[in-house]
């Protein structure tokens, strides 16, 4: 499953480590970049297009009436502002969320949880059942076929086979051919004596 991506822009090592620990405590998240230099924030956000940017207020003090103007219009990024002390929310109308250094653990975790569930709706992440098509691809892999052979066998393009394989690995948490073979046998997708 696609993870919810974060960039953390924070100069202080202590605070950055804390923020990263919080974000990493969710299984659905991934931190794709830590930024410590003001100059590079815009570049990285525009390039990596994360789901969220957590940014220290100090970095954007001048532009804080509308942070979006700092970045490309094409990004999907939502902005979480990190503030040293509590400030009223009206000041940050253009932010999607605010985390304060005074927030307690539960408060922060809840805020992040809500933000994540805005990206991955609940109930969605549980559907790890393989489709019939994917089962067929698993079968072919377990029989020892190459991507090209599978494509020919199932009348699909090699590209589609690769996409299926990616999705299968995402759903099952199994990547290697021998791992998928074990899965196929355990689930009676192939017989043990058919395995390559």
């Amino acid at each position, binding site marked *: 499953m696609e993870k919810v991506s974060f960039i953390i822009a924070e100069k202080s090592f202590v605070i950055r*480590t804390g923020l990263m620990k919080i974000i990493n405590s969710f299984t659905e998240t991934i931190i794709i970049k830590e930024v410590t230099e003001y100059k590079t924030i815009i570049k990285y956000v525009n390039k990596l297009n994360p789901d969220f940017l957590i940014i220290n207020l100090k970095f954007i003090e001048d532009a804080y009436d509308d942070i979006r103007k700092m970045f490309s219009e094409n990004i999907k990024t939502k902005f979480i502002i990190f503030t040293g002390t509590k400030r009223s929310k009206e000041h940050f109308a253009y932010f999607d969320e605010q985390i304060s250094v005074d927030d307690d653990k539960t408060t922060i975790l809840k805020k992040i949880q809500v933000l994540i569930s805005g990206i991955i709706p609940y109930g969605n992440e549980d559907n790890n059942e393989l489709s019939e098509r994917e089962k067929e691809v698993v079968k072919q892999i377990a029989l020892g076929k190459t991507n090209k052979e599978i494509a020919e066998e199932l009348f699909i393009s090699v590209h589609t086979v690769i996409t299926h394989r990616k999705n299968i690995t995402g759903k*099952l*948490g*199994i*990547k*290697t051919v*021998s*791992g998928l*073979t*074990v*899965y196929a*046998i*355990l*689930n009676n997708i192939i017989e*043990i004596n058919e*395995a390559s």
Partner: protein
Amino acid sequence: MLITKKTKLAEVIHQNYHLIPIITRFGINFGFGDKNVEQICEKYDIRQDFFLEIINAFNDEDYSPINKLQNLPLEITVSYLLKSHQYFNKVKLPHIENLISKLEWTSAENKKNKSILNKFFIQYRKEVTEHTLHEENEVYPFIIEIEKNYNLSQNNIDFYRLLEKKSVIKYAETHDELNTSLLDLKNIIIKYLPPSDNIDITEQILNEIFDLEKDMKDHTDIENSVVIPVAIKMENKLRKRFNLK
């Protein structure tokens, strides 16, 4: 906790028992009383700076040993990597294989489950052995040669011939992870294998896999971030020296 030369080794283990195999890998045996890292390293003739980097990196994920290790002789790092290979192949993998062979199911599927798990693991062991043997026979000795020649003042013709045929860059391009199949095995056991009659053995197997996986990951990280880039740098300079492309 940052482990320094003044830290008592007993304390290190109390604080993080996962470091035990790393410590024994250096040839250190137990019963070390109140000796600190400095004293232990002296006793066992271990390079203290290297030991501290490895042990701190294993102890704390945020500790990066890369810079310091890059500045130590590759020979030291490589000899540590060799010991890790031995530990994987001679201790850990046989142990896990043995545990797996003990799993039983009181169902008609018993034979099938046993046979596919064993087959999977034997195949994996074979892959690891091939990977490590290739490094031990081809890659590591070549890298040691590179370092030796890099430190020589004059050009060695035999090494010139070797450099015409071999390159660390080629190895770097095809260097795989060691632990991909372990990730698969974890999920197979946790999610897909029907529950066996031996929950205690399953628990041991999972613990062993989690440990080994981290050990292998650190191992591959050292190869990819220390040994390979340093060797490539040296190789490139040597190629220039020899006017080789």
